[in-house]
């Protein structure tokens, strides 16, 4: 199996990978599909699937870029606050008289800035991303509240609302199209591009990367800017979909997003994971929520069950490792 170009053994490696986490997720997904389908015949209809995605579309869009961040060995807790800030900034600007189109551009700029601030503290000052994004989680949310205070803003241009709520291409609304487009683009970037390779390398061993000439700071900065910019986009999509904004838009979303990514097999320590895993995890979580809706399980309970799933997702592989270690004495 040792081809000179390593190709066939590459394929075997790929297959082996599929046998691991992603394979496990696939099995779980089929199980969830089966249960849901048995509960309701409407489950597999296009309308239901689209609706299923729509309800959490902003979260799953951000989960795509969060995958990069965690693989890189970092974390971004501020994504939901950036979503909130972007939605509130849009509302505030539009209400203050700016055209919606220009407001969108400004909001994206704000997202960019938020990421740059995160990136600055993390790469230039060397403060751990957990602490920086915890502070900006609070700070950016605070800025959103400064703008909007305790009011709600809900008069947006018709075309804006339409983009958020009506189908754009066939039955698919804009947000879903953006999600799939982003999935394909980011998937290529993460798994087939030089940038993606560097993301993995840094998450694996940042020192070795530095010693090999990789500009670690630049890549981290880019990732955090990307994370916040995409979060800003997600915030706009949320505002369009819901048609209204308040100071607490997207509050608490970061936990769902991180749960999805970790469930997808991305290691919290960095260096491993895949966008495919995140996609499978998204499908599982969305279908689970849908199924639980069908079974009349309330929202809070759903969140609890997802939390349980998260813990099990690490617990079970750990148990496997212990079992195998127990069965064979390994030299260290």
């Amino acid at each position, binding site marked *: 199996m040792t081809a000179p170009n390593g190709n066939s053994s590459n394929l075997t490696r790929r297959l082996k990978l599929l046998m691991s986490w992603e394979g496990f997720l696939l099995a779980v997904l089929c199980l969830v599909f089966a249960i849901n389908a048995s509960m309701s015949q409407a489950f597999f209809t296009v309308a239901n699937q689209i609706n299923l995605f729509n309800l959490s579309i902003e979260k799953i869009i951000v989960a795509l870029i969060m995958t990069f961040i965690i693989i890189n060995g970092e974390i971004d807790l501020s994504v939901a606050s950036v979503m909130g800030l972007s939605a509130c900034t849009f509302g505030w600007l539009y209400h203050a008289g700016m055209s919606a189109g220009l407001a969108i551009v400004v909001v994206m700029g704000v997202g960019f800035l938020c990421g740059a601030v995160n990136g600055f*503290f993390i790469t230039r*000052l060397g*403060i751990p991303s*957990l602490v920086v994004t915890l502070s900006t989680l609070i700070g950016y949310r605070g800025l959103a509240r400064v703008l909007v205070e305790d009011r709600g803003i809900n008069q947006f241009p018709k075309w804006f609302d339409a983009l958020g709520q009506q189908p754009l291409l066939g039955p698919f609304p804009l947000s879903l199209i953006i999600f799939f487009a982003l999935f394909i683009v980011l998937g290529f970037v993460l798994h087939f591009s030089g940038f993606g390779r560097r993301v993995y390398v840094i998450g694996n061993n940042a020192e070795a990367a530095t010693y090999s000439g990789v500009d670690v700071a630049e890549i981290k900065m880019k990732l955090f800017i990307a994370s916040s910019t995409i979060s800003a986009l997600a915030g706009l999509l949320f505002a369009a979909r819901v048609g209204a904004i308040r100071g607490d838009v997207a509050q608490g979303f970061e936990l769902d997003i991180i749960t999805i990514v*970790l469930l997808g097999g991305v290691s*919290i320590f960095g260096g491993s994971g895949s966008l495919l895993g995140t996609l499978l995890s998204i499908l599982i979580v969305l279908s689970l929520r849908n199924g639980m809706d069908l079974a009349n399980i309330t929202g*809070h*309970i759903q969140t609890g069950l997802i939390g349980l*799933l998260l813990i099990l997702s*690490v617990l079970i592989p750990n148990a496997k490792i212990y079992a195998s270690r127990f069965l064979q004495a390994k030299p260290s």
Partner: protein
Amino acid sequence: MIRSRLKFSPQNLRIFGLIVVLICVLLFFATQIHNYLNKDLFIRVSTSVAIMALIAIGQTLVILTRNIDLSVGSVVGFSAFFLGGLLARNPNINPLLVVLAGVGFGSLFGMLNGLLVAYANVPSIIVTLGTMALYRSSLVQFSGAKSISTASLPAWLVSLPRMNMISIGGYDVRVTFVITLVVMLLAHFALTRLRAGRHFYAVGSNPAAARFAGINVNRTVFLAFTLSGALAGLTGFLFLARFGNITVVAGLGFELKSVASAVVGGVNIFGGSGSVIGAFLGAILVDVLDTSLVRWEVISEFWREAVLGALILLSVTADTLLSRKLLAISLKKTKSTPKQMAAFEDSLTTRKGL
């Protein structure tokens, strides 16, 4: 050889610095707000700090061991709810038993966290993200979507927040504040004078070395989470007393505040250093800022969160830069090798897996 002297450690500097900042903040607002520095301020801050500082202390215990507990908010809420229900059905129950019930209840949650982190080897950020959701949803289930109302609670509980331990010239020192103060002193004593307490620091400073040195790392981490849960349970009691009306969203967001207070108070997020006194002062600073911003006419009260976020960032930046400077000085004095510097840089940035 140098005899013992007051250690100018980053730790002590930090506490000193916090006190200075606190005084500055108080003086600043005194110039801005009419009739600011009076007993009302003291009473208001001490009452709300009683709750926040308590969970900040619990969070500190966990962070010292290089972990994090994001479930405290849910535990506070659940504990408040549980005790409220308990009292509604048994209004004549002994107050002490109620407190103990709260502590015990919270400990159970803490123990589950501890089991998963210490013995099942699941990283604490994952465990407590999961249990945060799990405990909250259990609360919703348990409550049947109803809420606790003050009317159903016994009089002694409702009047507890206003009860004074001692009153000095109009400065009422509330019982609730004293409870937290006592807990802080006990925790400080345990962490500095009990061998088991020192193990918290050892485990967070270098878990591998701790294991190697014969410290029972698993038991220490388990204990940290159990205590965090216990303190969250106690906080639930104080919360119930203070607010009376408890809904299923009680305690939401407390975990972030507790981490923020600890971090502002100089507790190193990577474990191994920090003090509960610092966390206590951090909680006070955060609360003073909160209260004062509301009353400051220059900017709207909605700036609270933004300022808090900036504050945390600033204090961590100051911390990091300061301790780096101090270490560079001492390393230069001892002419360390690049391996040393590399190891230090390591310890700053690559201790992952909270």
